């Protein structure tokens, strides 16, 4: 998998720096600041100059014999560039990498794209936080409304069934005249006041649930913007990666058990799309 290769490379790089590293004072001074050339493309020229200065300094040490054993001497003589051959080699490599990346980005026009995208990222973060906030509020409003409406409906059900039980008695001739009269009056009150009051209150909660959906419009707009940004970023990064990453490292998926919801299950055989498939899978395994 590419991830482990990368980290092995990185570790080797880290160790090669760490093993040679001695008191900070001994860090080779960078070459004198390059003369600011034509102002038109200052950034690129600076980089070019920096690169040249590093490359120039490190040509000799790189061609020397394996530097692993000379470390003790180097620590004693401590100054100048040649005592740190390994470190120089690392700087050299980083210089080359930076140069290559910079050139690639420049040639492909990705530098501008990435610059825009990177500056847009904090904005995207805010937008997504806004979406999370609004959806949470909406969920709370809906849950509150159901908490209020539930008991209202339950009450209608229980009072109605109590009356119905008494009407059953009346039809079975088990009620006296006075009782029947009282039942009729209570039923009238139930139909006239009791139920309408409860249904009105329930209706108000249904309206609340409906209004809680107003987040959809707002979050929809925000999400569309973030999706557009993500697509730009993806396209830019993909372009860079395809240029830079060696063929052999281009495949290999991320294996993780915490991927969140499957956003698009089409054409995938490694995911389930409903509860029935979960159950079938577990059954097939004997759980």
């Amino acid at each position, binding site marked *: 998998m590419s991830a482990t290769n990368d980290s092995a490379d990185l570790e080797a790089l880290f160790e090669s720096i760490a093993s040679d590293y001695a008191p900070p004072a001994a860090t080779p001074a960078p070459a004198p600041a390059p003369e600011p050339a034509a102002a038109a493309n200052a950034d690129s020229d600076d980089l070019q100059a920096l690169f040249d200065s590093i490359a120039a300094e490190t040509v000799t040490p790189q061609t020397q014999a394996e530097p692993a054993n000379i470390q003790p001497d180097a620590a004693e003589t401590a100054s100048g560039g040649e005592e740190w051959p390994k470190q120089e080699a690392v700087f050299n490599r980083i210089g080359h990498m930076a140069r290559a990346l910079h050139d690639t980005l420049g040639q492909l026009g990705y530098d501008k794209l990435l610059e825009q995208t990177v500056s847009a990222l904090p904005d995207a973060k805010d937008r997504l936080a806004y979406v999370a906030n609004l959806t949470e509020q909406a969920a709370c409003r809906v*849950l509150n409304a159901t908490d209020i409406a539930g008991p209202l409906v339950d009450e209608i059900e229980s009072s109605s069934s109590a009356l119905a039980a008494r009407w059953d008695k009346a039809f079975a001739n088990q009620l006296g005249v006075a009782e029947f009269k009282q039942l009729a009056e209570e039923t009238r009150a139930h139909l006239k006041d009791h139920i309408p009051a409860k249904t009105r209150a329930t209706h108000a909660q249904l309206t609340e649930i409906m209004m809680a959906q107003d987040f959809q419009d707002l979050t929809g707009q925000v999400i569309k913007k973030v999706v557009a940004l993500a697509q730009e970023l993806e396209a830019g990064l993909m372009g860079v990666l395809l240029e830079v990453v060696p063929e052999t490292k281009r495949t290999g998926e991320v294996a993780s058990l915490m991927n969140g919801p499957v956003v698009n299950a089409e054409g995938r055989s490694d*995911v389930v799309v409903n509860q029935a498939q979960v159950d079938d*899978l577990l059954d097939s395994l004997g759980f």
Partner: protein
Amino acid sequence: MADPKMRFLVVDDFSTMRRIVRNLLKELGFTNVDEAEDGAIALQKLQAGGFEFVVTDWNMPNMDGLTLLQTIRATPNLKHLPVLMITAEAKKENIIAAAQAGASGYIVKPFTAGTLSEKLNKIFEKMGQA
């Protein structure tokens, strides 16, 4: 049938989801429900004792649901607890990993009240047999 006083612990990092599960459990007649917002807090509450059923999400900060499940199964005084996972993780390897770790049931989000009821009953049946 299960005891309506059975004490549930609902573990999810989203309060909305905890509330939904709690409401569904209430509709099914289980009103004795406590909540925890991640596996670490859940474990603390479980250690304090008194719980008879755990409903947990998978993807949570501090301690995820699978680790919680594994820890429960590895803890002598907790390992008998039924653990139902309700999660958005829908990869087959997730389901297999959960089953192997000893999950009592696995529900993928989004889910319905019917599914929850069905899975709970299935778990109660198994507990009754045991």
